[in-house]
């Protein structure tokens, strides 16, 4: 916070100039924001796959699993950030607490997505795969998961965009990410409102969410050529 509010105009449209003045710091935050948004979704998916499979395989597991994951999602993010260090034995501002919290959110969201994705595979297809001689693991990876890809990627898009916004909240408790821009904006808004860092934070968050969303859509297209095949 070495910058003085008076050194530039306080018009919201000055965010570009603000960015150019603090490029290296802002880019560092953007990078941190990116991996903080993406990595928990990747880890979350890896954890959600077996859990979602369980919820699909043993029908009685589904209702309690959905209740628990649904509850997890209702915990306010700021509370979760604060609760994680004591639970996981971390320092109050350990950099690991944010990815851990976001992984929990991602798992909570993706377990349902994986279970519903597997449920989207038709019974006939599963019967046929079994009758043909697939063992359960082969069937899961070669038949069920590939067919569940569209449902799962739809869930990934939601999880990623949600993470981009939750990460920003972590910035306000001092973690390195685009949320810092909002803290700066508030701190520099005394006595008069000073918008450029706040607008810059919003613009970069939206751009990041957009890029991540488009990447998942591209991945989905790559993995599901069969979905675009239309009857001729």
């Amino acid at each position: 916070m070495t910058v003085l509010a008076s050194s530039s105009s306080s018009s919201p449209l000055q965010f570009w100039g603000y960015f150019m003045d603090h490029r290296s710091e802002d880019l560092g935050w953007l990078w941190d924001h990116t991996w903080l948004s993406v990595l928990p979704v990747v880890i979350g998916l890896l954890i959600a796959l077996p859990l979602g499979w369980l919820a699909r395989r043993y029908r009685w597991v589904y209702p309690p699993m959905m209740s628990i994951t649904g509850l997890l999602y209702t915990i306010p993010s700021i509370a979760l950030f604060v609760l994680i260090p004591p639970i996981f034995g971390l320092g109050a501002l350990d950099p690991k607490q944010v990815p851990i919290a976001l992984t929990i959110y991602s798992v909570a969201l993706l377990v349902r997505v994986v279970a519903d994705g597997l449920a989207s595979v038709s019974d006939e297809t599963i019967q046929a795969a079994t009758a043909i001689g697939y063992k359960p693991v082969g069937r899961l990876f070669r038949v069920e998961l590939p067919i569940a890809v569209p449902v799962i990627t739809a869930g990934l898009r939601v999880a990623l965009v949600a993470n981009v916004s939750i990460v920003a909240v972590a910035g306000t408790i001092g973690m390195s990410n685009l949320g810092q821009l909002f803290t700066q904006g508030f701190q520099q808004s005394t006595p008069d409102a000073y918008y450029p860092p706040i607008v810059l934070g919003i613009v970069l968050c939206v751009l990041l969410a957009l890029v991540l969303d488009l990447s998942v859509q591209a991945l989905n297209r790559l993995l599901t050529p069969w979905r675009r095949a239309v009857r001729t």
Partner: protein
Amino acid sequence: MIRFDSVTKRYPDGTVAVDELDLTAPSGKITVLVGPSGCGKTTSLRMINRMIEPTSGTIWLDDEDTAKIATHELRRKIGYVIQHAGLFPHRTIVDNIATVPYLLGWDKKKARSRSLELMERVGLPPHFAKRYPAQLSGGQQQRVGVARALAADPPVMLMDEPFSAVDPVVRDQLQAEFLRLQEEIGKTIVFVTHDIDEAIKLGDQVAVLRVGGHLAQLATPAELLTRPVDAFVAGFVGRDRGYRALGFSSAGTISTHQEQTAALGAPTPYGAENGPWILVVDEKQIPQGWLDLDGVKPGENVITDGMLYRGGTLATQGGTLRAALDAALSSPSGRGVVVDDAGALLGSITASEVLALIEGREREPQP
């Protein structure tokens, strides 16, 4: 050969789906399981490849107890075709068909060329290879299902109502092609259907099941029509049994009457020997239809397609009594048209002459 040896299936909820079933499906033949919904057909079928485990009893595959074979190995030796085909939506047709060869570790090239060969066998054009299942009609998907089941040349095929979900015209076509294919490949087939007509058309032997999983009768189609063992089977086999049974009796060599004909494209004749109807043939003597001379002015018109009555069926020399009787009954002149194997006119026969043949044949049905 597949042999059920007092096989019972009791589901956890207490339902007895199959009760002490003894049944042999001989090698190279089509055994049809038929019966009302819920009588245990699917359960019986799935116990063969152990998608469902029997509660008691043994199912033998040749001289091996299926319970002693690892399930995935057993299944890779048994082709399986179901209603709606159950194709893999994310794989192209060629890869769908090659699934079992891939699982068996064939190299990709060999698996694909096998797959293309099978596409041709089941009547799918080669340019379908790169399509996905969603791009095919129900009937085409069902052909892919059959090709996929045949890919690794398994000795046994299980088919669970494979043609039930397609429209009647396509079903007839698929059934006919299925019989032709079976002539070539001679698999041991267990075929499940709820449709008695399909059972009679396709089965070398037919097992009629009743609800509760009891075998009511095991017989050839002809036997089933002529000698149902009890009221249940008689009721299930349905009406017109006597008439349909004629479909399994050869008419022998029919002695026909010579039939006066007129040529398509020739002027309408001035009269006919036997009443107003005259048979119209083309230049190859292939019957085209009947012409009603009462409805046309003699000598003025040329005989065209549009003037012909085409409702009559044709009987082929050496065919069945049913075809002969139907030809006579469906002919507006009352004279059934008999043709040779090439479809050319031989002559005609009346319904009363066919009835005389029916009465004169050996009363005992030949199973």
